[in-house]
């Protein structure tokens, strides 16, 4: 009985000390509380086009791709991003011949690393995360097996529809060179999630992802963007200031 009373007293003392310490910390926090940072106002919807891909298309005979992006400033330096595009590739050799084409979509977000200086500052250095999906169509493939003794054989593999999906990490910068016109670049690391689906006749190139024979890709974009902006500081706050 006595032992129980002593334990209860010790426990009560402990709780009392903890509460006192918390109160002290809480009051210290209240005293040292930082002033609320001003909110960033304004809405922005940005349309982007990757200008590097048409350049690469001119220089590469075997593939084509085009990419677009749409991002919206959500809040707290977070942009919601929707990207898409399409492309095609060909594999043309005497013993193996086939074409593929696909469209793709990528969804995700960007988070700026540097806070906006003011409401008119839309320059950004950011990192982001994406999930990508690409339905792929591989046309009928033709192959030849040569033999100098018995003769060569030619056969076809039927066309097939496939699906690729991946996750990617991205980072880059975008700056406003002219009012509402922005230029920027991204570096991306992509990781294919369903590599085992492509055992035979892998797509040579998957628009939106990269080389079809790799499961990990490093890629980049150079975007030219146009921003549509609206909204601003609410009138009530302007009057209060």
């Amino acid at each position, binding site marked *: 009985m006595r032992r129980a009373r002593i334990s209860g007293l010790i426990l009560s003392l402990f709780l009392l000390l903890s509460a006192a310490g918390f109160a002290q910390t809480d009051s210290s926090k209240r005293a040292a509380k930082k002033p609320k940072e001003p909110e960033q106002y304004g809405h922005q919807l940005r349309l982007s086009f990757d200008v*590097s891909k048409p*350049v*690469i298309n001119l*220089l*590469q*005979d*075997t*593939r084509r791709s085009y990419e677009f992006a749409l991002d919206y400033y959500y809040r707290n330096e977070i942009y919601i991003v929707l990207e898409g595009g399409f492309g095609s590739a060909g*594999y043309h*050799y005497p*013993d*193996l011949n086939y074409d593929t084409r696909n469209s793709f979509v990528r969804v995700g977000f960007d988070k700026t690393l540097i806070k906006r200086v003011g409401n008119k500052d839309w320059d950004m250095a950011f990192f982001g995360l994406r999930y990508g999906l690409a339905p792929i169509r591989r046309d009928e493939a033709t*192959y*030849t*097996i040569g*033999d100098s*003794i*018995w*003769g060569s*054989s030619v*056969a076809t593999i039927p066309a097939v529809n496939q699906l690729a999906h991946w996750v990617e990490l991205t980072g880059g*910068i975008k*700056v406003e*060179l002219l009012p509402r016109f922005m*230029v*920027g*670049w991204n570096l991306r690391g992509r990781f294919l999630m369903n590599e085992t689906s492509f*055992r*035979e*006749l*892998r797509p*040579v190139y998957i628009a939106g992802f990269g*080389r079809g*024979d790799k499961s990990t890709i490093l890629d*980049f974009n*150079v975007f030219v963007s146009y921003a549509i902006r609206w909204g601003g500081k609410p009138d009530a706050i302007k009057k209060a200031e």
Partner: protein
Amino acid sequence: MRPIQAALVALLALVLVYSCKKEEREPCLQPRVTELHLRTMRRADSGIAVIDTLLPYPLLRPLSGQGTQYVYSFGRRPNQPLSMSLNQVADSCRWAIQPDSAAGTLSDTLTFYYTRLPRFLSNACGYTTFYDITDYRTTTHAIDSVIMQNPSVTNDVNVINFRIYY
């Protein structure tokens, strides 16, 4: 020029340089040739053991091949198996084998029956044909007997498919 603009121009230049490198087909690093491998054996001078025998001047000749018949003469190393291709446009083929062309020994005819299995190797290598031997026949002018050791004929050069006993 603002530093950021300079960085963008430099990046675009990098894109162009990188893009100038055309993507070429990767080299094929697997054997594409599919051949059937034979090892020739003879009984030892004493006892019941059988040992590899090096045929003196063997000739392998495809029968009913396309165009001109080809004659192969080998200077084989000891224990090196004989190799022959199978007809990928038919379900059977025949080969004549003469153990010693210098001595004019009699030839024997080997007939193979098989199932053809097209096999994708890789984009770099394309396709080849694997075979599954279902039956075989042989004449016995010089050959004593033939035993099938492995019916799968693939691009693996280490697999021995048949043993021919002289």
